[in-house]
Structures are given as structure tokens and as C-alpha cells.
């Protein structure tokens, strides 16, 4: 456990420059925006644009002074949870985003669940049926599934499932868990196809290894061999890929939230982009960057739990 703790501390330390970079990029994006943010703020609030007012607005926004100083000020504000105020509503950005965050988290969790529920059984069955017609059909389906854009899939689901069947909600999240169904499927399907392929390939690779033969020679049940020996080992490379997947998942929420009018941060961000509501966009990208970094940290840790070889690389040596 001590090894794990040491690793965690080291890992957190390496995060510091990454987080500084993430905040810096977020900050510098504001400079990319065409137009003077202070002027935009004033016109949005129907305040007369005078040199004095502009100066006041600049100070309020922290957009005057040299770049490093502005960044430091902004970072101090961010550390205190102050992400500025929304141009459109005048509410604090942090409150707006946090209010929408649970909906996006639900959606991401739903998508992940759909992904695992589809990918694990399909990948396993395809590996066990290797070379049969079922396997080939499954692989083709997975290939096609991974190529369908999620926004297209979402619209297909609405047109050909929700509309004919009625009663499956397609707008918002007011009808409880059932309203999560189609958005989750839309989000998880493409990823499931990728993972089913990956799991199948890994399982086939593992099932050929000598220790599986050794396990058979010891008279273990086939279910035990696959469940306890093959599956866990096949899962290790899958976990290392989860990091990339989390990116796709978070990116996917934007699209899915837009199609299904899901009241999450992704929809907020797209609205903010059309409104040129820069503080909200800035808060959104900062939040997503942080979430992504944290997810990758968790994935790294679980990877180490799954694979003792990595876990024990340092620290405990060989038994002698």
C-alpha cells in the first residue's frame, strides 16, 4: 500500500505542470476571441461604452496589464472558485456550470454503462465463437458501428425507435431514468463497437498463452479459466485505452446533449459559443480538462491494481 501511496504522490506532482498548462491554455483562449471582451461585456449589459466604463470593465474582467500578471490574477480567482460572470445571465460561471454538471455526469455514466454492457458480452462471445459465421457478422457489425457518427445514430434512434414506439422520451431529462436510455445508447454504442473488437482480439491472444493450457492441465473448469484467468488479463490493455475513451466520451456528451436537449454542461457550452459568452466557454474547457486529467489518474491507478507487474516494478523486489 505504501508503494501505491508513493506512486500517487509522485503522479500528483507530475500533474502540477500539466494543470498549469491546462489553465494557461484556457486563459490564453480569451485572447483568441475577436473583439474586446470588455466592450462585449458593456454592450451585453446595456451599459454605455465610455473610456471610463471600459477601464472599469477591463479591471473587473482582469484583462488589463501584462500577460503573466493577468494570468496570475486569473489563476488566483480560479483557485478561489471564481470563474467570472456569464455575459448573458450575469450569474457566476461556476454556479451555472456546477448546476449543469450532474446531468452531464449522469449521461457519461450511462454511456459508459451501455458501452460495457454491450462490449463485454459481445467481445467475449465473439472470441469464444472465433472463426464462425457469428464471429464474422459480429466483427463486421462492430466495424460498421464504430464508423457511424454519434449524431447520426442519435437521429436514427429517434426516427426509427422513439417515434414509432412512442413513450420513449427524446427531449430533456424530466422523465427519470427512461429519458437517459436513448442518449446513453447514442453515446455508448460507437465506443462499445471499438471495445468489443479490442476485447475479442485480446481474449484470443490470451487464450493462446501457455498459462491457459497450464490451467486446463490442472483440471480447472472452463468458466474459471475464462473468467479468472483469461478475462482479467485481457482486460489490462483495455484499461490502458480507457483514457483515450474518456476523451471521446466527454466529447460525445456535447453532441448527445444537443440532439436530446439534455440540460448538461455540453449544451451550455454550445449555447455559450453561439452567444459569444466567453467566460462560460472558458469555465467549460477548464472543467473538462480537469475532469479528463482526473479520469486518467483514476485509470492509471486501477491499471496498477489490475497488473501486479506494474505495481511492483519499484518497491518490493524479488523474494529470495
Amino acid at each position, binding site marked *: 500500500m505504501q508503494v501505491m501511496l508513493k506512486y500517487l504522490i509522485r503522479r500528483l506532482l507530475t500533474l502540477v505542470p500539466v494543470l498549469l498548462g491546462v489553465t494557461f491554455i484556457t486563459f490564453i483562449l480569451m485572447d483568441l476571441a475577436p473583439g474586446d471582451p470588455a466592450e462585449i461585456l458593456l454592450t451585453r449589459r446595456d451599459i454605455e461604452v465610455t473610456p471610463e466604463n471600459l477601464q472599469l470593465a477591463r479591471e473587473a474582467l482582469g484583462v488589463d496589464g501584462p500577460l503573466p500578471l493577468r494570468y496570475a490574477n486569473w489563476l488566483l480567482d480560479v483557485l478561489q472558485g471564481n470563474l467570472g460572470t456569464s455575459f448573458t445571465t450575469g450569474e457566476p460561471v461556476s454556479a451555472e456550470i456546477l448546476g449543469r454538471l450532474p446531468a452531464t455526469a449522469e449521461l457519461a455514466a450511462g454511456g459508459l454503462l451501455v458501452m460495457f454492457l454491450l462490449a463485454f458480452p459481445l467481445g467475449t462471445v465473439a472470441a469464444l465463437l472465433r472463426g464462425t459465421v457469428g464471429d464474422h457478422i459480429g466483427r463486421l457489425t462492430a466495424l460498421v458501428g464504430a464508423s457511424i*457518427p454519434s449524431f447520426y445514430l442519435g437521429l436514427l434512434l429517434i426516427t426509427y425507435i422513439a417515434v414509432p414506439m412512442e413513450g420513449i422520451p427524446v427531449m430533456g431529462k424530466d422523465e427519470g431514468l427512461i429519458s437517459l436510455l436513448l442518449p446513453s445508447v447514442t453515446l455508448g454504442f460507437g465506443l462499445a463497437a471499438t471495445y468489443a473488437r479490442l476485447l475479442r482480439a485480446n481474449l484470443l491472444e490470451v487464450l493462446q498463452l501457455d498459462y491457459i493450457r497450464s490451467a486446463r492441465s490442472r483440471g480447472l473448469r472452463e468458466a474459471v479459466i475464462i473468467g479468472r484467468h483469461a478475462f482479467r488479463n485481457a482486460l489490462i*490493455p483495455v484499461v490502458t485505452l480507457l483514457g483515450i475513451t474518456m476523451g471521446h466520451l466527454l466529447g460525445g456528451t456535447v453532441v448527445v446533449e444537443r440532439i436530446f436537449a439534455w440540460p448538461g454542461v455540453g449544451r451550455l457550452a*454550445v449555447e455559450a459559443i453561439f452567444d459569444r459568452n466567453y467566460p462560460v466557454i472558458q469555465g467549460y474547457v477548464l472543467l473538462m480538462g480537469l475532469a479528463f486529467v482526473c479520469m486518467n489518474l483514476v485509470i492509471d491507478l486501477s491499471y496498477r491494481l489490475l497488473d501486479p507487474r506494474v505495481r511492483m516494478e519499484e518497491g518490493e523486489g524479488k523474494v529470495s
Partner: protein
Amino acid sequence: MTGRLLRDHLSLTGLVIIILIFAVTMAAPVLAPHDPLPVELSERLRSADDQYPLGTDPLGRCLYSRLLYGGRITLQYSLSVLAIILLIGIPTGLLAGYLGGMVDGLLMRVADVVLAFPNLILALVVTGFLGPGLINVMIALAVVSWVQYARVVRGMVLSLKQKEFVLAARSAGTGPLGIIWHHLVPNVLPPVVVMATLNLGGLVLSIATLSFLGLGAQPPVPEWGAMINEARNYMVSTPMLMLLPGTAIALTVLGFNLLGDGLRDVLDPQGFTRPRQQSAGSSKPSPRLFSRRGSQ
């Protein structure tokens, strides 16, 4: 055996799909019966006939023509983004890997930071700050994607640098540029081609996605993702408006994926472009039951 055969068939299918789509969309000015832009409200939502092979959209424009021109735009912009990415990513990776030290350290820090954001979200936000439009989407995608190439190329250069032929060239007095051009570039390119092929599918998807969100192609410009967005209000009454561009995107992406998978077997046997992963079992290759020493 059948697996291998199936795979060859699949990558060939991918190639055929890609060639067909390219041929048809690039020949849009010749093949399209109508101008895809002018609105003709009197002709709106017509079904397929001699004049309009696939009917018309809610603004009375020829769907077939828009589909062809739309694909042309999607593919042109995907290729342009790719070209930019390659032009930035490959030289940066080569230099960072070859020079090492500060340059390399700086590149890796920048890469860490860019990769700390989900790809699509960063592209979305950059577009958001730059303002909607295809050109801005192109810039945003290039900004977020070049890093991956730089990293892969750098990794390959680091391992190539240790190889005998590079050491030999260096001891024979070949200069850095000579080594990079004659020894590193030819070895780096094949895996990059694989990566680029697989990536093109992703770029098509990204451009279509951003356009679907309204950030890419602006009306009246036809683009597959934007066309699907325009079709949203008609998806139950006139599903063709959505089905055609949607299927076109899926086919294109499928084609690039199939082709890329096939190319990977040929051009990248070491697996540089595979997602990095630990081997599932022992690192030793499983011993062959029948080693055929000395025969043949």
C-alpha cells in the same frame, strides 16, 4: 487463415469505397445536375424524378447535387487539415526526437498539456473563440491534432537513433540533415501513412460533427454534417434528407478505417501506430510446436 483472408478482403473493400467516394465527390461539378446553392422554394421537398435524382430539400435545392458538393467540402477540408497536421507534426517530431534536450522537453510538455484536453472538446472550444466557420474548424482541428503525430514520430526517431544503420551513417560523417532525410524520414513515413489513413476517418467525423453543431460549414454551404443538422426538422417526414448524408459519412469513415487497418499490417508491423498497451500475457512469444530448422 480465413481471418487473414477476410482482412485482405476488407481492406480492399475499404480502398474501393474510398476511391469511389473520392471520384464521385471530386467530380461533383461535372456530375451534379444543379447548382447546390440557390434557393427555389417552389421546388421544395420534391421526391425523386428525372430532374432531381434524389429529390429536393426544404429550400428546393437538388439533394443529389448538394450531397456531391457536400462530400467534396468534407473531404477537401479533412485533407487540408491532415496536410497542415503533417507539415507541423512530422518536422517537430523529427527535430525533437533527433535533437533531444530542451527542444524535446518543451515539445513533450506542450504535448502533455494539449493531450490533457479531450480532443473534440478542445477543437470545439477553439472554434468557439475563433467564431464559427469551416476555416476556423480547420485551424482548431490542426491545433489539437498535430501533437499526436509529433509524439509518434518522436518515439520512432528515438528508437531509430539507436539502430546500427544510423550510427554507421553518423560515424561515416553524414550530417544531421542527411541522417534525418535519408535515414529517419523513410523509416518514419510508412507508420505515419497508416496513422494518417486512420486519422482521416476521424477528421471527417470531427468536421461533420462540428458542422452538425453549427460551428463548421455555414448555410447555404452544403456539408454532410451541416446537411444532417438542416434535416433535423424533417427527419420523420422526409428521412432521406438525413439518411443520405449520414450514410455517406459512415461509409467514408468505414472506408478509411478498413483501409487503415489493412495498411497497418503491411506498413507498420512493429505497431507504432497501435494504441500503446501492455501485452496481455507474458512478453515471450509463445513457442511454436514445430520449429522447422534447416528445412527448405
